[in-house]
């Protein structure tokens, strides 16, 4: 797994709930590409069409609160999100994202420091990020061992298959 990620930031606010990430009216969709095309439509329908692959979502407190819908991380991954930095993450969203191999990094105050469009470099192994344009270093929390183990395996599915002795 790549532990250094670089991408353009899209900055969002506090309490971005899963209804904003993936509105309820699309919950009956099952195709991942189609799910990705509606990502963050509850915040701004212009985000998904213009999103650059490998982009970094930057948010405030409690990102991913609300419903347990796995469509939320599926949408983010398929829109092309490489990593999410936030003050804090809601619990079910955290599990869902890590299970699907989407890295989440706790980075206090990141929403105030970064502007949309800036390039962010995230070092998952070291727990540190940087705004490339200004050189400003953003101290982050290192990911927990358990979550890192799932990410390194490429998500819970390959990990689980291996555990069951399947290819």
């Amino acid at each position, binding site marked *: 797994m790549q532990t250094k990620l670089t991408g353009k930031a899209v900055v969002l606010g506090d309490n971005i709930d899963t*209804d904003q990430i993936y509105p309820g009216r699309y919950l009956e969709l099952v195709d991942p590409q189609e799910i990705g095309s509606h990502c963050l439509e509850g915040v701004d329908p212009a985000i998904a069409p213009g999103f650059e692959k490998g982009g970094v979502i930057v948010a405030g407190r409690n990102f991913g609160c609300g419903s347990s819908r796995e469509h939320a991380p599926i949408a983010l991954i398929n829109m092309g999100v490489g990593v999410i930095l936030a003050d804090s993450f809601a619990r079910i969203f955290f599990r869902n994202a890590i299970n699907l191999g989407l890295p989440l990094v706790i980075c206090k105050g990141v929403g105030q420091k970064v502007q949309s469009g800036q390039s962010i470099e995230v070092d998952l192994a070291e727990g540190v990020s940087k705004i490339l344009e200004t050189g400003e270093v953003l101290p982050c929390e290192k990911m927990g061992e358990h979550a890192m183990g799932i990410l390194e395996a490429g998500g819970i599915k390959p990990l689980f298959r291996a555990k069951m002795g399947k290819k």
Partner: protein
Amino acid sequence: MGTVMHAIEKILAKACGRERVKTGEIVSARVDFAEINDLYLQTVYSFREMGGEKVWDRDRAAFVFDHYAPAPTIRSAKIHSEMRAFAQENNLTYHFDINAGVCHQVMPERGVICPGMIIVATDSHTTTHGAFGAFGTGVGATDMATLLISGELWFRVPEIIEIRIEGVPPKGVYAKDVILSILGRIKADGAVYKAIDFTGSYVEQLDVPGRMTICNMAVEMGAKTAYMQPNRKVLDYVQKRAVKPFEVQYTDEDFAYGESHLFDISGLAPQLALPHSVDNVVPLTDAEPVRVNQGFIGACTGGRVEDMEAAANILRGRKIPDYVRLVVIPASAEVMRECMDKGLLQALMDAGATVSTPGCGPCLGAHEGVIAPGEVCITASNRNFPGRMGSTEADIYLASPATVAASVLGGRITDPRTVM
């Protein structure tokens, strides 16, 4: 010291075959009951992608079709059909189809939720089952698939905080008002990754529906799970329904909570959460009399017999004005029958209410009462996020069923105490 444990920790320790567990450690626990609702067909796909063959225990997993009951679109009908096939292949003992109701209501009714159990469901409001002294928590589709294969799930042992509720609420003030007032103070991220133990004299005497409403909304503070020590009313409820033996766990005296918050509800007014956040809460006495287009009474938060009764007591013999609508959805078939026996649905329909099939319906903007741009909805359900019940340009207010009834009656947000 070190041996003092909370009931939640005892439940987790027992489920991983240990004497004790420590806050912050990651444990793998055996799950007593797993439930998948009809938004989570991905569970079946993830199950197969991981090489799953059979559900680990046919007595301990069930589907509940509640979010799309009955199916409003071809796509949701297809979700149901694929899930039915999976349930049949696995010969699951329990199956709750479109005739059942909301998962958090039908599972306790069927006796599969009991004190001391670990309940995992693909729904964030699984915290509801703390009302019965069970450990309930929500997960996503792939987590659920790993559980269906193995019968176990990893948990981080949560820090436990106490919310102590003392006093007797005044007339016109309900469990929903109590939890809204708590949300207003603890805030939407005040309990992220933590477990909430609701204690105090109010909780000790509280009935099962009131307990369910409060534990239901614990997740709106970010909580992993909620807990209330079972009282006589809970034991009476579960003893006549339980399908398996169960063991009530008790918190040791001297247990030290991570935090403790005291709420005195003796002088509490009815509460209202303003758009667009669950913690944007004011007493109704400070609220503007905003015009409303739709009221909704139902869902896992506010769709029980007592909720319908509170609304019917306000609307009986009165008329909701033209151009204002009230959608009423009993949380389950059992609730609906009891409401009919008591004449509650008839009273609500006489007042002009629209009654729909038991299920989640408009709470998540799926069907049965979606809101248009520019409209205002006052609801007894649990979330007022932008777009939650339909258009992102609609405003949603959260309140008790009594406040919803009073507000549709007046066509404006109204304190129920003025019409009781």
